């Protein structure tokens, strides 16, 4: 779109708490420069108050549109009202906000994190078949909505199968180091891990840590113990190539692309996009040529 060249868009990003987030930021920049949009990114260092401040300052600078990757689902009403008063369209990226705000934003480009959990659960159920299966779960940060949703989706999926049971669940804070530490203790607590059949992690980073823990305990991840996690970051494909990981559910870092298209259409032709542009929650397994995916993802800034 020709007009997009003059657009200035403010993007209130959460921070840089994980590789996925870094990739989202860098993909957003790439997508914006592809479309010659001037993207101003304000990094909130994981704090909602900083995001609110950033949005206020975007309004003060009179940008053409605001992208918001909300750190938490609630608490946006008043600042988004201000944006609305200033007639600046807002697009949510990556996460939705609380329903009360529906009329306050133009559209939300997000995945459905409950669905992600379901995809993971369904895959596991299908793979295991009728065998009894003890699962350990590595949760994300306590209190993070993604963690709660991915847990919920997974639980719903396996609830349909009596043979699947989550025997232990503890937080690994979305990090590799904690994922490894927690997995170590799971292995000890479950008699050396012999009784375990699968690990579910709310993100790939924790799974990478957990895989190391299993290997050090003399277990064979991917074979003795199935793994399924979410995000599809490059390193999990590396593990798949090595046969140490089984499945991952993709959370695309390219949220900005669809968002930019929607804004451009809105500005050009006044096309109102649908309220929710859902991104794919695609499942990847060892059969999907993990090496190729790894190579294609490596450059994205994960």
């Amino acid at each position, binding site marked *: 779109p020709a007009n997009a060249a003059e657009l200035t868009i403010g993007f209130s990003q959460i921070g840089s708490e994980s590789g996925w987030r870094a990739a989202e930021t860098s993909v957003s920049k790439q997508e914006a420069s592809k479309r010659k949009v001037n993207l101003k990114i304000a990094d909130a260092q994981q704090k909602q108050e900083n995001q609110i401040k950033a949005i206020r300052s975007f309004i003060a600078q009179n940008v053409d549109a605001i992208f918001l990757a909300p750190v938490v689902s609630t608490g946006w009403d008043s600042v988004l009202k201000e944006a609305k008063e200033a007639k600046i369209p807002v697009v949510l990226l990556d996460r939705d906000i609380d329903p009360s705000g529906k009329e306050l934003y133009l559209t939300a480009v997000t995945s459905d994190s409950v669905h992600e959990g379901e995809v993971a659960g369904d895959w596991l159920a299908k793979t295991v078949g009728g065998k009894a299966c003890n699962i350990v779960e590595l949760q994300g940060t306590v209190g993070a909505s993604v963690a709660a949703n991915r847990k919920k989706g997974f639980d719903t999926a396996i609830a349909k199968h009596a043979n699947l049971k989550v025997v232990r669940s503890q937080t690994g804070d979305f990090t590799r180091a904690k994922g490894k530490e927690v997995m*170590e203790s799971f292995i000890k607590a479950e008699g050396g891990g012999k009784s375990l059949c699968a690990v579910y992690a709310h993100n790939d980073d924790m799974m990478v840590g957990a895989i190391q823990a299993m290997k050090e305990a003399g277990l064979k991840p991917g074979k003795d113990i199935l793994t399924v996690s979410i995000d599809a970051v490059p390193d999990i494909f590396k593990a798949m190539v090595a046969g140490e990981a089984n499945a991952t559910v993709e959370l695309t870092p390219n949220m900005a692309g669809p968002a930019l298209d929607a804004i451009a259409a809105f500005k050009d032709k006044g096309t109102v996009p649908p309220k929710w542009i859902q991104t794919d929650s695609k499942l990847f397994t060892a059969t999907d040529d993990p090496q190729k995916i790894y190579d294609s993802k490596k450059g994205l800034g994960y």
Partner: protein
Amino acid sequence: MTALLPRRGLAQILALIVILAVDRVVSPQFFDLRLQDGRLFGSLIDVLNRGTPVALLSLGMVLVIATRGIDLSVGAVMAISGAIAASLADTHSLAVVLAAALGAGLICGLWNGFLVAVLGMQPIVATLILMVAGRGIAQLITEGRIVTFSSPDLVWLGNGSILGLPVPVAIALGMLILTGAVVRGSALGLLIEATGGNARASELAGVGTRAMILAVYVWCGVCAALAGVIAAADIMGADANNAGLWLELDAILAVVIGGTSLFGGRFSLVLAVLGALIIQTMNTGILLSGYPPEFNLLVKAVVVLAVLLLQSPKLSGFAGVVTRLRRTKA
């Protein structure tokens, strides 16, 4: 050092035993040990291994605190040194990697020491600067990604074993002995304690208090850098966003549990490390217990308070309150 242990360390040892006993209750196989690929394997080893970063941090922190200082930047320094080590690991020899990573820690320590000793800033703000900026520097090095490496030398530092002990544990032990030898084998310990106890008086007695302060921050930086390298080696990657996050608080906690006052003066290296082990024993216990993670912080709070009360010099104070209450009732 050894002479100090029995009398001063009693409360800590007691606390450790109690927590170990509780761990045994929540997890019956807690004391099981077996040899796995030439390496000891079991929850106790996990405690030692996972406790290593905080133990290393507390080795530096205890000296800083002994001079009445505090170092909030150790977590960020861990991230920096980890990032440096990971980015160099696959292209340089281990010696170069270690030199660069520890060198970075040394520079960070010098910076902190400069702000505190020369510019006279209050330690908590002086080190807050690096706490904030340091993580940024680490992320700058990794560009926010998790930088992975496969250099077997560096990986060995995190996952190898010496005589059945994990390498990190051996390193921490070595650092404890080295620090102990340097501090107690020279006059450093006395001079640091004097500086922390009364800087003005020490200065007048001819102690180079500035040099002392500078030295302890430098050492703290080096210890933090080493912890950072080990943390990176452990996960075979540098996670600048999360490495060492909030560990400064654990390190301070370890030092205080080890009986060193935040108002400076007397310190004990061994007990600080013991403090780190107490914290890790508790953490591992929480993980083994199988409680939902929402309870983690509550348990931690309660245990910390209990441990502090156990070793409070004022348990007699508590006795005093009781007798007072009795007296007023009578």
